[in-house]
């Protein structure tokens, strides 16, 4: 930092202000900004522009602008509507069980019992398992040749005979959902546990002195305290799950007969297998728009119902 030796105090203060508010922070930030801009933000803009072009790597010829053709094709594409419906089942099916089981686990971890630290490490483990391995493992568990699940399901009467539900159009989506629940419970437990630990214990003590039952302290203290955290976690998680294509792509590839095709796997297979980048980008923009709409609606609801 060089400063004129004769500079009056005001100028020097100004220079220091400029240095520490405009220049110095950016010296530390620039690498991150450059990387994010180059690899994420610019491709994002390019991706949106692709959705107005016809870019098929398998067909020779230059890319050309086709205005809204991709979106018009999308509107009359039955596969798109099926995927949209499946996206809803996939997202909310996974979310519901991840959340309830995650909340249960967080409440459990907020009490004390022997070997709790070891227990916590074990139950959080699925979160660290690579997603491709989670997908393969669950695909194998559902395979009647080497997996126990079809036999168990048949034994309790859910299935008439032990067959692979991943091959059944009516049931296939529950395979990846099961894998997603297994993988996602630790995440909810971690986030909710942190929120639980921030509730002052005096509140519970006071409630107990006043004769409140465990259920009353849960509904009157725990839930209201958790509500803001729940709202934000559920919203972020919904978006994340809706975007999450890995499990379905590996377990079923969207089949059988598109019964597990969700929007994000449809985007990926369109880009990866058909190399139709224009249409894949249009699908991606549609998904982004729907997620944005969802976030806006949820935030509006939150403002109305959750008093902070």
């Amino acid at each position, binding site marked *: 930092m060089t400063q004129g030796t004769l500079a009056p105090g005001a100028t020097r203060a100004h220079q220091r202000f400029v240095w520490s508010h405009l220049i110095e922070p950016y010296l*530390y930030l620039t690498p991150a*900004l450059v990387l994010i801009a180059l*690899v994420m933000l610019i491709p994002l803009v*390019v991706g949106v522009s692709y959705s107005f072009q016809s870019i098929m790597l398998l067909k020779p010829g230059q890319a050309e602008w086709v205005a809204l053709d991709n979106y018009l094709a999308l509107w009359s594409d039955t596969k798109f509507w099926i995927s949209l419906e499946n996206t809803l089942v996939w997202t909310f099916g996974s979310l519901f069980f991840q959340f309830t089981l995650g909340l249960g686990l967080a409440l459990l971890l907020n009490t004390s019992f022997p070997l709790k630290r070891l227990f916590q490490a*074990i139950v959080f483990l699925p979160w660290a398992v690579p997603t491709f391995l989670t997908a393969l493992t669950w695909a194998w568990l559902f395979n009647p040749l080497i997996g126990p699940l079809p036999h168990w399901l048949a034994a309790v009467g859910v299935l008439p005979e032990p067959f692979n539900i991943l091959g059944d159009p009516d049931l296939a989506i529950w395979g990846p959902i099961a894998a997603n629940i297994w993988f996602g419970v630790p995440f909810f437990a971690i986030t909710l546990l942190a929120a639980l630990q921030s509730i002052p214990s005096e509140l519970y003590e006071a409630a107990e002195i006043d004769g409140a039952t465990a259920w009353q302290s849960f509904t009157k203290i725990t839930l209201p305290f958790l509500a803001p955290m729940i709202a934000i976690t559920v919203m972020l998680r919904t978006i994340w799950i809706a*975007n999450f294509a890995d499990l379905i792509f590996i377990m079923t590839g969207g089949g059988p007969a598109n019964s597990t095709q969700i929007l994000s796997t449809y985007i990926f297979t369109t880009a990866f297998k058909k190399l139709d*980048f224009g249409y894949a980008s249009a699908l991606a923009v549609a998904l982004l728009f729907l997620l944005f709409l969802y976030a806006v609606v949820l935030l509006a609801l939150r403002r109305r119902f959750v008093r902070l």
Partner: protein
Amino acid sequence: MAIARRNPLLTLGKYAAILFYLCFALFPLYWLLKIAITPDQLIFTEGTALWPSDATLGNFTKVIWQTDFLRFFRNSLIVSLASAAITTVIAAGAGYAFSRFRFRGQKLIIALMLLTQMFPLLMIIAPIYKIVAALGLLNSLSSLVLVYAAFNVPFATFLMQSFFDGIPKDLEDAAMMDGCTRFQALRKVILPLTLPGLGATLGFVFTAAWSEVLFALMLIRSEDSMTFPVGMLTFVSKFSVDWGQMMAAGVLALIPSCLFFIFIQRYLVQGLTSGAVKG
């Protein structure tokens, strides 16, 4: 809980719940290991039995010496370590800036970083493919490193920021008073104190890069530079009857993630909640 102590039924319920969560978390992994150590000739007769009557490590030795998995493993290790190192250095800088400065454009930059965590990453898979292809970097590990580093920088930045926030500002003020520049103070005083944070960030990025599969599938098509997930999926679609070998490979893929997980799991509750939210 006091209530639980009074009511034996609740205590019983609690231990039942503990048992349920333990089985739920461990069973799929147990099954993976079980099939991996089941000898080939027993797989179809005892495939669904809870415990194999005989065990072997043959599947592991076959996977390691007779297939390409060692190469996939090496590729994945290079990609994950390089992404983790680059991301952590870059995110430490950015996290430090967020933690110690109030500057013009800060809110905008935070908003942009949050945005990158929200939009479908698949949206940029086509542009990235075109850019990487134009640069002649298809099938190269370096393109993956660059992509993974960028994907993880925003989250790692928020994580590092929370670690820097936990270190008193007085420490570097004192060092700067004694004549250090800010960068020297950061390097000599602050960074040594953030070592656990740096380790946790390294671990998060490593595990994320280790398990990424969709961009790896798109950008890597030659067997020589396949990462572990891509190699494994190729193996599964080609030799889908070698159950024992596939699961042995799966168990091997689990090792690095588990090592890092054991290391980072103490920071989980602290780290995940202080900055951002990520799978």
